């Protein structure tokens, strides 16, 4: 297999470009998109690469259609992706719910920009975190990953595909304009060294009869993709294990939704990913994700330098959310700080997790610029003094 970019060595590229290359290496062969700042570079790279690797890159008439097309492609067996930013992500909400309900593996990249509405199109923010988790209607669960560097954007894109395939669920890669547009060195491994997952297919005709049945006891049904003679029926309506619409049976609805939520919840351990820095003996913790976590690392070093025992928890996955881990940290430290490029979103989840065992303080920032390490240090020191 020949790749349209160098593999097995490092390159100096934008986050958006890294996402596109990782998708190709993850086996993505279908991309549908619509132009939007600051995600267009992903699309442009896909447009350049896809025809060369016999994949499809197509520009749809809007974002609604883009996510629809990738769901369609996923049902014929293609690994599929779309990328957008806030306004387009808002438009995708209905069909994101459809992908959750029909358990369709897809990857949706949201390169966050400053909102609400059109806001500041070229500037970064972390304002869509709760939208990624709660933006579509009805009870549901999904997976949300948050890269902080270009290398992470690359690695997490591959992981996003693997998780989507493994758990038959949409996965959101929630990055931002800063990571998307910045250039850094990325080590692009040899394709043979990349571990890839492909969805579980039915072992036989019998299994294929239950596209939505927990036939293996692992809550994840094998996916009888179209065109194999299984004659699968897929609907966004509440359906039974065979996929037949059953819209008035409360029992069936309960069973279906509970399984969809539980297949994420019960596999939390496998999905959740985080890093810690100087957290073991910390008395003050900073919980951060995405681009801000990079400022937070530096802030921790600076705080340590000033004699404040600070530590960092950097979340690489923000949903499912490890409430228990936060509670454990809350038992160890007396305060948790959450710097976010918004006016308080993941902060709410941290607060729920902390369960009153430690003070939880928000360090908000909006306007398109990343917190400087000094700003975090200052905010922490101000609060530490006031106790």
């Amino acid at each position, binding site marked *: 297999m020949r790749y349209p970019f160098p593999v097995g060595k490092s390159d100096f590229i934008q986050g958006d470009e890294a996402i596109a290359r990782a998708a190709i290496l993850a086996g993505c062969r279908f991309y549908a998109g*619509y132009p939007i700042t600051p995600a267009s570079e992903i699309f442009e790279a896909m447009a350049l690469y896809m025809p060369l690797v016999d994949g499809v890159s197509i*520009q749809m008439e809007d974002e609604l259609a883009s996510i629809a097309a990738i769901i369609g492609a996923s049902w014929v067996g293609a690994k599929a992706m779309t990328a957008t930013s806030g306004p387009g992500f808002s438009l995708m909400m209905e069909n994101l719910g459809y992908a959750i309900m029909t358990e369709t593996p897809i990857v949706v990249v949201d390169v966050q920009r400053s909102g609400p509405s059109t806001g500041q199109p070229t500037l970064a923010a972390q304002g869509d975190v709760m939208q990624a988790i709660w933006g579509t209607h009805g009870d549901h669960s999904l997976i949300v990953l948050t890269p902080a560097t270009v290398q992470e954007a690359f690695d997490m894109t591959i992981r996003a595909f693997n998780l989507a395939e493994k758990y038959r669920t949409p996965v959101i890669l929630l990055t931002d304009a800063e990571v998307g547009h910045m250039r850094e060195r990325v080590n692009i491994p040899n394709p043979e060294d990349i571990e890839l997952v492909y969805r579980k297919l039915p072992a036989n005709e019998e299994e294929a009869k239950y596209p939505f049945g927990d036939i293996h006891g692992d809550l994840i049904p094998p996916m009888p993709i179209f065109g194999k003679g299984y004659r699968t029926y897929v609907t966004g309506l509440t359906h039974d294990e065979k996929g037949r619409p059953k819209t008035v049976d409360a029992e069936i609805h309960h069973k279906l939704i509970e399984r969809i939520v539980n297949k994420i919840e019960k596999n939390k351990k496998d999905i959740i990913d985080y890093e810690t820095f100087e957290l073991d003996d910390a008395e003050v913790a900073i919980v951060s994700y995405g681009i801000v976590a990079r400022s937070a690392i530096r802030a921790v070093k600076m705080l340590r330098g000033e004699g404040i025992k600070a530590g960092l928890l950097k979340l690489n996955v923000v949903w499912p959310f490890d409430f228990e881990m936060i509670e454990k940290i809350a038992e160890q430290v007396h305060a948790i700080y959450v710097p976010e490029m918004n006016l308080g979103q993941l902060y709410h989840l941290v607060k729920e997790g902390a369960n009153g065992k430690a003070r939880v303080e928000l360090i908000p920032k909006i306007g398109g610029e990343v917190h400087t390490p000094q700003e975090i240090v200052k905010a922490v020191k101000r609060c530490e003094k006031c106790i």
Partner: protein
Amino acid sequence: MAKEIYTKYKMAKYLRKEALPTALCPGCGGGTVLNAFANAIDQLKIDPKDLVVVSGIGCSAWIASPYFLADTLHTTHGRAIAFATGVKVGLPDKKVVVISGDGDLAGIGGNHLIHAARRNIDITVILVNNFIYGMTGGQVAPTTPFGAKTTTTPYRNIEHPLNIAEVVAEAGASYVARWTTAHVYQLIESIKKALTVKGFSLVEVISQCPVQFGRRNKMKEPAEMLRWFLKNSIPISKAKKMSPEELEGKFVIGEFVNRQRPEFTEELNKLIDEVAEHFGLGDE
């Protein structure tokens, strides 16, 4: 801080001085369109107080927003005509004008475009067609000519452009015309007609984007693009006698329809009067 604008340009009175200069690139056709629109307003002696200008997202949405000194509603991507529908129903006596681009109005907003034409609501749409998504960096649009290069069709476009004027005419508009930025006088006349016609009117303006479109298609200079427009423009009367093959790659210009059809807000208000009469709720 408002910058002082020293100009002898007569139409400057229609512009928001504190918002100038515009963000349009040098050589963009948007300026021509803004100028033509201002001239049409001037010639018709329309008071800008009787105007509401609505736009979506994209370079062409910025032609009048915020530069034109009237009530201006700058909305979300593709939805300008739907917003304008609400404005027109609320203010049936005002002129409601939508100025936006091809990607905005015919790409993501294509549905609102054909439905407004079907309703024949009295809105004037000036659709600036530069064949490209300029603001986001030159991606293919539903209007991009077959075979053109863009950032998302690096190996040339394989889709056929949407014939906006014909689709809108078919959908039921009262007035439809197409010109290019090389046909300024005809354009002004058409905008004037569109503003006077009762019902949905569309003036499609083929316009140059030398930076995002021209550069990738061997027309770096605005003048080259204008020459291209002039060379390939075919008047509609002549086009009728030509085969589809002969028309490949040509721009059919002129008036597509100009007709009287029932208008939406009039019909809506008529209905309300009838209901009031029927239930004995009229003005006693």
